[in-house]
């Protein structure tokens, strides 16, 4: 087991075992080149295979992460990257169900709690990630800051949904507030992509009584944007989803086809300024922001994912230097961090 040296700065990456993004390796290399050691802490390995110590002793707070790969006691010059979580995921499934539920609940409380009380910089605190993940608040803030947003209805009221749909001559798309998967009897993953409503859907709307949904006027697309905000930097990429059959409504439905099709995009200064204002308002260093550019040139804000994925935009075109930007923020390189005061 390796242990920390006193003088070396450390970054602890909070994730989960099945998070196999290539970003971990890239970030490790970027941090190492800056003389910083990285330790990965998988939330599903805690509390069974990894330890956390938070203590108040001798007038100071101590936060220590211990894994089979090493251990780190964090100080004011260190940093944490909160990326993914699966609280207590490796607790035995054959435990008594109620006891396991208690363990998972306490595990989440412990890890969320110590990250909130960490004696160092956190990119970004899980409480902020949760708070700023709420789609209604995202749209409200974006509109308040002068960004265009689609006409939107979120409801479990079928009558309200029918009236909204009737008021949108260009059509309506519907989507969920969050992402989840359902598995059919063959184990195949099924999800709800953003879907254009057709007449056959209308007589199913009574099912809203079991689960609300998001309805938005259909926005005409020239290109779709993914803007990765890291510290003070914005990295914008565009994809022409309208040129690929099956990707017109939700580009993710042809995600593999389009994987190499993202291109660098220059945001209008006005939009850039408003996205900076958005990031300043939510007090976060990171977000993955989705927009549509209409043929008219109007930029329409859809959502800002506080923990959105981004690695494909580094590994493929447009090859944005995202790991380097993350490392700069984590080590507090000059002008890298966005002020959140």
């Amino acid at each position: 087991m390796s242990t920390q040296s006193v003088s070396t700065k450390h970054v602890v990456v909070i994730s989960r075992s099945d998070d196999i993004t290539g970003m971990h390796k890239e970030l490790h290399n970027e941090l190492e080149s800056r003389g910083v050691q990285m330790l990965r802490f998988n939330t599903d390995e805690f509390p069974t295979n990894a330890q956390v110590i938070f203590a108040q002793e001798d007038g100071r707070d101590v936060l220590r992460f211990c894994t089979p790969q090493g251990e780190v006691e964090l100080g004011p010059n260190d940093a944490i990257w909160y990326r993914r979580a699966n609280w207590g995921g490796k607790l035995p499934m054959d435990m008594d169900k109620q006891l396991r539920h208690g363990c998972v609940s306490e595990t989440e409380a412990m890890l969320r709690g110590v990250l909130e009380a960490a004696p160092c910089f956190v990119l970004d605190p899980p409480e902020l990630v949760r708070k700023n993940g709420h789609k209604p608040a995202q749209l409200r803030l974006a509109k308040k800051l002068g960004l265009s947003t689609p006409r939107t209805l979120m409801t479990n009221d079928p009558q309200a949904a029918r009236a909204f749909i009737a008021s949108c001559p260009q059509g309506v798309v519907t989507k969920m507030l969050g992402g989840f998967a359902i598995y059919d009897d063959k184990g195949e993953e099924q999800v709800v992509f953003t879907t254009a409503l057709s007449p056959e859907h209308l007589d199913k709307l009574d099912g809203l009584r079991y689960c609300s949904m998001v309805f938005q006027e259909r926005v005409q697309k020239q290109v779709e944007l993914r803007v990765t905000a890291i510290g003070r930097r914005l990295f914008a990429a565009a994809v022409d989803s309208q040129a690929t059959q099956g990707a017109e409504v939700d580009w993710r439905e042809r995600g593999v086809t389009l994987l190499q099709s993202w291109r660098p995009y220059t945001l209008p200064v006005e939009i850039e300024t408003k996205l900076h204002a958005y990031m300043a308002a939510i007090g976060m260093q990171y977000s993955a922001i989705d927009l549509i550019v209409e043929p008219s040139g109007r930029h329409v804000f859809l959502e800002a994912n506080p923990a959105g994925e981004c690695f494909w935009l580094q590994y493929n075109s447009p090859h944005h230097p995202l790991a380097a930007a993350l490392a700069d923020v984590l080590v507090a390189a000059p002008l890298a961090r966005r002020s959140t005061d």
Partner: protein
Amino acid sequence: MSKKIAEESQDAQVPFFAHLLSSQNDPAAGTGGPAPTYHCLDSPCTKKYPSDEDESTTGLGDRDW
């Protein structure tokens, strides 16, 4: 498509989203060899689009059914 899941449930208890469920059927995926994905370089990941959530939401790990 989701029809099977929706049809297997009692009609009166099907949320609207169940009629919209689908698997990703990108013809570029699964054409031999590991497909490039949004997360991984050389791991057997099957994600064909980015997962933007920080917390696991499938619930399969905790299911008691």
